[in-house]
C-alpha cells in the first residue's frame, strides 16, 4: 500500500488523486510526500460517494485560528478511526512553503490526518465549487457524506465539530 502511494506521488499530478486518498491510516502522512493538487485533482475528494463521512478542512500554517482548531480535527480523526469518517486537511499554504513550512509543521505537531496541498491560484473559479456560501476566508470546513453536504466558514472545537459530524454520519 505504501509503495503504491509513493509511486503514485512520483507519477505526477494527474495520477495521484485516486490512490493517495487510500493512504494507510497507520502511516504518518509527513513521512510521505504531501500531494499537491490543482482544484480539478482535488475535486474528486470532495465528491466521493462511498458512505464515508468526509471532513475536509481548509487551513494554512500561517492561519492562527486554523492552527488553533487543528487539534479538534486530529481528535476527531483518532476518535472515529474505526468508523467511516475521514479527515482531510487541505493546506492553502503557498507551494514554495511546502518543504520549508508545511512538512516541518506536520512533523513537529505529529499530524495524523491526511494532508494535501491545494495549489490552484484561480480561487474565484473553485471557491464556489466547494460551496456557494464560502466567502473565501479560512478556516473553512466541508462535511459531506454521499450527496449530503454542509459547509462552515467558522472555527470548531472538538465538541462542536463532533456534533456536526454526528449529524451527517
Amino acid at each position, binding site marked *: 500500500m505504501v509503495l503504491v502511494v509513493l509511486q503514485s506521488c512520483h507519477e505526477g499530478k494527474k495520477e495521484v488523486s485516486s490512490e493517495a486518498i487510500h493512504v494507510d491510516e497507520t502511516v504518518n502522512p509527513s513521512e510521505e510526500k504531501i500531494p499537491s493538487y490543482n482544484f480539478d485533482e482535488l475535486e474528486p475528494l470532495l465528491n466521493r460517494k462511498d*458512505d464515508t463521512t468526509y471532513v475536509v478542512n481548509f487551513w*494554512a500554517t*500561517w*492561519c*492562527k*485560528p486554523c492552527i488553533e482548531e487543528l487539534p479538534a480535527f486530529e481528535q476527531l480523526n483518532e476518535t472515529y478511526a474505526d*468508523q467511516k469518517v475521514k479527515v482531510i486537511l487541505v493546506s*492553502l499554504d*503557498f507551494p514554495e512553503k511546502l518543504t520549508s513550512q508545511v512538512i516541518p509543521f506536520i512533523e513537529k505537531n505529529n499530524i495524523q490526518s491526511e494532508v494535501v496541498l491545494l495549489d490552484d*491560484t*484561480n*480561487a*474565484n*473559479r473553485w*471557491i*464556489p465549487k466547494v*460551496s*456557494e*456560501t*464560502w*466567502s*473565501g*476566508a*479560512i*478556516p473553512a470546513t466541508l462535511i459531506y457524506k*454521499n*450527496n*449530503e*453536504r*454542509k*459547509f*462552515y*466558514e*467558522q472555527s470548531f472545537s472538538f465538541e462542536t465539530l463532533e456534533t456536526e459530524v454526528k449529524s451527517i454520519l
Partner: protein
Amino acid sequence: MKKRAAYLVVLVAIVGTVVFSSFKNSETAPISNGYTIGDEATDFKLKDVDGSMVSLADYKDAKGFIVIFTCNTCPFAVASEDRIIALDEKYNSKGYPVIAINPNDPKVQPDDTYELMQEKAEEKEFNFPYLYDAKDKIYAAYGATKTPHVYLLQKENGKNIVKYIGAIDDNVRDAAGVKEQFLANAIEELLAGKEVTVKETKAIGCSVKV
C-alpha cells in the same frame, strides 16, 4: 449502524431521486450580512496612520472609491500590497482613490496594532490612507469577512453605491500569473460609463480577526 444505514438507503430511495438530481446542498454556513451590489455604502470616520481622521466625504472630487479591507501580515494581504499601491497610482488621479482599512482587532491579532500599521505604511510607502477599524467595526457594516476584501464604490447623487465586491484579480498569490484583473476591469467600465460586467468574485483570504 447497519440498520440505520439500511434505513437511510430506503429513505434515500424514496425521496432521493429529485434531491440527488438537483444536487441540492444543505448549506448551513451563516450568510454574512453586509452589502450586496447596488447598496449604499456607509461613510465612516477612521484614524489614518498619520493620525488624521479620514472620511469618504473628505474626497469632494472623487468619482468613487476602492475600499480595501486588508491587514499587516496575512500572506494574501502582503502578496497584494504592491498591487494595491499600483491601483492607487493608476486610479487616484482618475477619481477612484484607494482607501485601505484594517479590520483586525490587535487584541486578537497582535500583528495589527496601530503602531505596526504605521510601520507597514512607512515601510511600503503607502500613498493612500490605511485606517484603523478595530473600534468602529466598519468592516461589519460592509460585510467584509477576510483580508484582502475589496468594495468598489461609485458616487451617485451624493451616495456611495457598491459596484463590485471581491478580489483584486484572479491570482492573489502571484501578480505575474494574473489573467483577469477583476477590480481594474470594473473601474475601467465605470470610467467608460458602462455597467460593471463581473460584479462579484471570490478569493481566499485570512478571516477578519475580531
